[in-house]
């Protein structure tokens, strides 16, 4: 009886393995796969947390009467836009690098998900145009244009979590949604403080929590080599 098809033979096969070596090899390769392709929650939470904390903080610093800081409003606006744009670029590049070379079912889902982001933010751009044409006051425009994009960010992250079965991403989306809802009720100008401290600060706490989780997982796996494999 030949239990397995094909013909395992030649010199390419290398030295024979024992079961413990096999288990260690599987653990090592799985760790390598996870490190190379997994989305790093520490990075994304950290980047978005920092951008929200400082960006909304900058906006808040000139929104109160009298302003907390003496710098011109347009500088605060540039700082805010620059920080959020940087976070978005880092986010997109990170995902693109991690998922490079993968095709098929989940890659198609990822492409559709990407289009959902693109389409909804194009819609936000149109909304700002529509508000201006409808004669919305600066206060109304500011309220809508601050909260609407964040509601989309929250909702799309929760939807992404449903696609990839990722609780971390669900927590990220849910937190953004909750903080934005509170901010919308609080209203300008203090909603900016809520978004900065609770939104940005909360994401930074999330980054820290994930860093601790990763460190514990690494310690657990290296405590007994091969344990994580089988």
């Amino acid at each position, binding site marked *: 009886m030949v239990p397995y098809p094909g013909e*395992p033979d030649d010199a390419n096969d*290398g030295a024979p393995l024992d079961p413990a070596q*096999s288990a260690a*090899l599987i653990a090592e*390769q799985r760790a390598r*796969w996870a490190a190379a392709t997994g989305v790093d929650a520490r990075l994304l939470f950290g980047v978005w947390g920092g951008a929200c904390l400082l960006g909304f903080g900058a906006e808040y610093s000139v929104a109160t009467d009298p302003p907390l800081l003496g710098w011109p409003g347009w500088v605060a606006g540039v700082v805010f836009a620059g920080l959020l744009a940087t976070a978005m670029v880092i986010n997109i590049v990170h995902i693109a690098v991690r998922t490079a*070379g*993968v095709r*098929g079912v989940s890659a198609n889902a990822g492409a559709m998900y990407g289009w959902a982001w693109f389409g909804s933010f194009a819609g936000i751009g149109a909304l700002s145009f529509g508000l201006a044409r409808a004669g919305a006051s600066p206060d109304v425009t500011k309220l809508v244009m601050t909260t609407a994009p964040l509601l989309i960010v929250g909702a799309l992250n929760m939807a992404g979590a449903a696609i990839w079965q990722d609780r971390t991403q669900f927590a990220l989306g849910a937190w953004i949604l909750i903080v934005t809802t509170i901010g919308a009720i609080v209203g300008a100008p203090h909603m900016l403080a809520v978004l900065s401290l609770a939104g940005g600060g909360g994401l930074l706490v999330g980054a820290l929590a994930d860093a601790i989780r990763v460190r514990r997982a690494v310690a657990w796996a290296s405590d007994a080599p091969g344990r994580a494999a089988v």
Partner: protein
Amino acid sequence: MAASPSEPLNPLIHTQARLRIMTTLTALPEGDRLAFGRLQALLDATPGNLSTHLRKLENAGYVAVTKGHLGRVPTTHIEATRAGRRAFEDYTEQLRALLTPPTGVAGPTKEKP
């Protein structure tokens, strides 16, 4: 096929190179393919060596190779088939049986002081 410690480990998987290939490909969700270049980078393998092992796994029905084009550049994507995933699962199950003492005490690496 049920895993049993008394049977030999599947020789098609039980080599350094092919074990690492199957570990990597089964880490992808079912239905996803990986580009040859990315697989090569994740394994530190030479193209020739990787091709040899992939052909062996393909002949056994454990992996499927899809050739295509991206513009004018030929591309190769590899995925673990259902049979391949099954064989890898049997292999790891058998390993677990081999590494767990029959007395049922906690794993071989943990010792109580």
